[in-house]
């Protein structure tokens, strides 16, 4: 089989794999539309899919601007979360004593409801990008740290023995074994973190903002424009999905050797 036909069949498999989800999605939409029509539900309470579609079209320009702003917050915040999350995991593993001191504090911090911090960050960092980035960072770094730690620590003990038996130093083991070994775990953590990042951006905008999708949702609900609230929600979800699959593509490029995890078919 040639490379090309292989890719073609890959795509085919991927598309047919999405088919059941698509069908279910369409069924739900049709039912939703029918229920609204039959029971004559007010558009202020719950708009029909057709109302949402109309609103999407009518507000396309405003939604696009807001999307860019929110996407930027998500991306920058996530980048900070990734850097902090990875750095913490590396420090904890490399300096055990420091790790023993720090880890319980991180866990403790994790139990603080971060949403409650949003107003404080607004107070400290103003209305712009900064408070959103900080909020996203504190929400999203933990899954990255945790999964990275698992990856770094789960190197087979006998492999470590093997390295030590030839006089390898802990730095060698870290760089050449632990870090590459942790990559698949890191990617899993990043997938969780990116969805947290989207939530963080919206919460941050709720707490205080003058632009973005979260701001639009809040503004539209004060105007009783429920259709626009839903239209913005649709766009937020799309942003999340796009980022999620971007990481999955990155994973395939960066660590082609890792076993592919199929969340559905392996269950």
């Amino acid at each position, binding site marked *: 089989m040639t490379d090309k036909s292989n890719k073609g069949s890959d795509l085919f498999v991927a598309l047919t794999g999405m088919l059941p989800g698509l069908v279910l999605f369409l069924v739900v939409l049709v039912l939703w539309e029918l229920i609204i029509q039959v029971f004559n539900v007010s558009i202020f309470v719950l708009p029909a899919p057709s109302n949402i579609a109309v609103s999407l079209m009518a507000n396309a320009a405003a939604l696009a601007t807001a999307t860019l702003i929110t996407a930027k917050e998500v991306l920058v915040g996530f980048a900070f979360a990734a850097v902090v999350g990875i750095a913490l995991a590396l420090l904890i593993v490399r300096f055990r004593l420091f790790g023993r001191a720090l880890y319980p504090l991180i866990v403790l911090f994790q139990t603080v409801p971060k949403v409650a911090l949003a107003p404080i960050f607004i107070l400290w960092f103003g209305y712009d990008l900064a408070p959103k980035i900080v909020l996203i960072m504190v929400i999203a770094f933990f899954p990255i740290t945790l999964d990275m730690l698992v990856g770094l620590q789960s190197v087979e003990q006998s492999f470590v023995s093997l390295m030590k*038996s030839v006089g390898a130093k802990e730095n060698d083991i870290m760089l050449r074994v632990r870090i590459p070994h942790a990559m698949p775990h890191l990617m899993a953590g990043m997938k969780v973190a990116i969805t947290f990042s989207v939530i963080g951006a919206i919460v941050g905008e709720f707490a205080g903002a003058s632009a973005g999708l979260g701001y639009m949702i809040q503004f539209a609900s004060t105007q009783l424009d429920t259709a626009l609230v839903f239209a913005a929600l649709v766009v937020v979800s799309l942003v999340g999905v796009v980022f999620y699959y971007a990481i999955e593509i990155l994973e395939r490029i960066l660590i082609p050797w890792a076993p592919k995890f199929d969340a559905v078919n392996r269950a």
Partner: protein
Amino acid sequence: MNAASEPAANRALPGSPIENAASVRPAGKTGPAMITVQDIAISYPGIKNGPAVIQDISLSIRDGSIVSLIGPSGCGKSTLLKAIAGLVPPSRGRMDIAGIAPQEAAQRRLVGLVFQEANLLPWKTALDNAAFLLQVSDKRVSAKEARERAGENLKLVGLGDALTKLPSQLSGGMRQRASIARALTLNPQILLMDEPFGALDAITREEMSYLILDIWERTGKTIVLVTHSIDEAVLLSHEVHVMGAKPGRIVCSITVPLAFPRNSQSFADPRFRETEILLRDRLIESHGRSRQAS
């Protein structure tokens, strides 16, 4: 009793397996002692005042011989092997490898290790895996040279066609061959193998035994093998040390009276069966004793 200085007069008489309870006799037709272990005891840190995991162990393993350690689970076979590899220090006693301390010997790459799991890095090809430890242990060896040596050893173990394959594309037996090639690439004088075929099916195990014999005939390395298979121990070894548990110790050492080269024909030799029965008896005895002790 000092095993190392005992005269070689006690070596195997041709024709029958020789057994010497709690002492060790060097096997025939090999060089002077490569590994000397004198009266060592090992206890793991963290188990406070716990009894030693192994105790009163003395061994002398000749240069170029194949020696097996066999015994009930938990009797300290892996621990003894790790001590020889310089990975755990004995709390008592002396050991030397080719005249130097185990840790120093490891640093000088005198020992190569093979474990039950092949422990290949999944992101590296067979070739890079086989070259990996040499590259890590000696920065003066160029990547090119390390790969060349790795390639030769992969050919030696029969993986000449799989150099560019990733571990996930290799069978269990092939992975274990690659891990043997990785140990050989260090060009050690001693090969320490801890249940190297434990995870393989019976036929592959037997193939691997012939591979070990083949490697030994070509390189003359000293090989210490931990195994649970009596067959394997008899087929491969000059000498088999039977260990008992609680505390881990050597209960007897048996010299295998079969001539080299050995191969599938060796199974037909009546002395093979004789040695096997003797070993099985000693093993069952040691099992019984350690069960009483617990």
